[in-house]
């Protein structure tokens, strides 16, 4: 593990040959955490997770232990694992599903035991064919092995796990849309309140929704204790975390590093990580946490990979995906493509998101193709303002879920950081980058 001497946690097996098999998993300390967990009181496990201050890895960054303890007291309780990973530039869960499905499964059973879940569902993004096969195979093996199903490892605890395929819709990553989808419906997010999964989730029952990477951390935390995890990182940003690094770096990929002790610069430049900008180009801008996040400029590159620091600076670590854009990048084109994404993925419930995303995409395309008007810049910002009033951070919203208010992130970043570049497109009717 580079930079700090913290050792990797969730990616420690990925380079093992056939790492996805039960055999490889057991040879590398698999299911030890679960065996230990089953000897503990469920409540004690939640305490360990609280102590670890494990932050959700799906995007919202909410404390996992806290979420579990907020469950409405009712039976049955369900556990839903979010493996829908569709936030552009995020590709860590994809790797975990293919490389270490048993680790996810072990985390699932630990969590199910801690919250007393009757049944667990692992919702895997439909496009992850190989991930689905590996996950399904792992479930088959785990049942055989007695790690899932009835009377797990003779402990008397039982839980069934079902691998559920998605079918291609980014919005189904949103936890309430995911629940709707899991109920066999259109992926329309539910209004919160009252539909917080912990209160009213799957089939109306209290439900825990956690991300694949979040789950993957549980075996280690139970085995080594929450304190050991909390000892890593700084403040609320504890433990290690996978960052999906992409764009104009020499060595794009998933890197698990200790939180808050590593900076964006390290991530980009360290030879064992990004290895620097390609062709020795200059950094133009970077996105710290997926395309829903506002952009950062080069002068913010020394900021630590710290959830709260990034939040204070007006953006988010989100799903831990860092996109690097060098000086050859056309900001207008990048913003347009991201806007186009949201337009294609809006579920269509809320008028501002449904119609606003399309309108913004059309304006951006016009500008990108050289048919823009000067007033379009103000129009862009005002339309954005009607989706996320005030354009502040974290955004206010006129919509049901936060996909809507995520649309303005890149637009306002682009217009504010690269206004001249936008104007050049408008005035010259062409892209300076050809």
């Amino acid at each position, binding site marked *: 593990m580079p930079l700090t001497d913290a050792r990797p946690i969730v990616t420690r097996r990925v380079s093992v040959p056939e790492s996805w098999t039960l055999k490889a998993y057991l040879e590398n300390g698999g299911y030890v955490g679960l065996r230990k967990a089953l000897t503990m009181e469920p409540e004690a496990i939640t305490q360990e997770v609280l102590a670890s201050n494990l932050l959700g890895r799906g995007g919202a960054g909410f404390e996992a232990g806290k979420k579990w303890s907020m469950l409405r007291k009712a039976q049955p309780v369900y556990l839903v694992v979010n493996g829908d990973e569709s936030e552009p530039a995020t590709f860590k869960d994809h790797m975990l599903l293919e490389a270490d499905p048993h680790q996810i499964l072990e985390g699932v059973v630990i969590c199910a035991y801690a919250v007393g879940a009757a049944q667990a569902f692992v919702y895997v993004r439909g496009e992850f064919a190989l991930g689905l096969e590996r996950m399904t195979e792992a479930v*088959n093996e785990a049942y055989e092995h007695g790690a899932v199903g009835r009377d797990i490892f003779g402990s008397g605890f039982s839980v069934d796990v*079902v691998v559920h395929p998605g*079918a291609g819709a980014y919005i189904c990553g949103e936890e309430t849309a995911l629940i709707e989808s899991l109920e066999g419906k259109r992926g329309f997010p539910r209004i919160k309140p009252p539909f917080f999964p912990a209160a009213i989730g799957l089939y109306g029952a209290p439900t825990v929704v956690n991300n694949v990477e979040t789950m993957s951390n549980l075996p280690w935390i139970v085995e080594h204790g929450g304190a050991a995890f909390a000892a890593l990182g700084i403040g609320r940003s504890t433990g290690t975390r996978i960052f999906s690094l992409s764009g104009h770096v020499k060595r794009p990929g998933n890197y698990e590093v200790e939180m808050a002790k590593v900076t964006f610069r390290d991530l980009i430049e360290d030879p064992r990580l990004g290895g620097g900008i390609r062709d020795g180009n200059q950094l133009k801008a970077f996105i710290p946490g997926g395309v829903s996040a506002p952009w950062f400029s080069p002068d913010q590159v020394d900021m630590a990979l710290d959830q709260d620091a990034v939040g204070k600076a007006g953006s988010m670590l989100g799903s831990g995906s860092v996109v690097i854009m060098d000086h050859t990048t056309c900001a207008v084109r990048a913003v347009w493509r991201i806007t186009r994404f949201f337009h294609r993925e809006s579920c269509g419930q809320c008028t501002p998101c449904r119609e606003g995303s399309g309108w913004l995409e059309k304006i951006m395309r016009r500008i990108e193709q050289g048919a823009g008007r000067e007033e379009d810049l103000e129009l862009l910002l005002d339309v954005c303002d009607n989706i996320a009033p005030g354009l502040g951070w974290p955004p206010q919203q006129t919509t049901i879920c936060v996909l809507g208010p995520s649309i303005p992130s890149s637009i306002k970043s682009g217009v504010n950081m690269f206004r001249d570049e936008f104007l050049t497109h408008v005035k010259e009717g062409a892209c300076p980058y050809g």
Partner: protein
Amino acid sequence: MARLNVENVQRARELIALYPVPRSALIPILHVAQEQDGWLTPEAVSHVAELLDLTAAEVYGTASFYDMFFTEPVGRHLVSVCTNIACLLNGGYELLEHAEQKLGIKAGATTEDGEFTLEEAECLALCGAAPCLTVNWRFFGPVTPESFDKLAGYLRDGELAHQVPPHGTLCRVRRSVGLPARSAGEAGPGVDSGGTA
């Protein structure tokens, strides 16, 4: 191509048994239907509706929300080229244009011989290997114009059949276990059909 065949009806029944509420099996069953015919035929949609006691309109409407379900025939190979941010920055659109020329069709279309359907995809979560694409949801990346041409050739000649099954086949591994825990009644969830916004 028609209603679900006997084996797939059996698979559908097994899928329904995995969930506290039958409708939850809808998407998995639609994948089975798409595996059978390569797309969702009207007959299959009606059949799935019968199996779940829904109207065909409900099944059709739900399926139409999801990009992976096709209610029109598609080519044997669905080539999905990512053009989202990471790939955009690494030549995703150039790759897509190359693919359009190579296959002689625009994105969204299917070749005369029904071999290929080309589509522009959103982020495929393989950004470390940009620009990337999938064929029937099997991943390839980074892809250069040259490697694309090779790939297209292999696919046409069926040399990748082991790695890339025909369109519609998603998960070739079948679940081999039932639900012992639930059937044991130890953790049998009481079904609460409420809870939608």
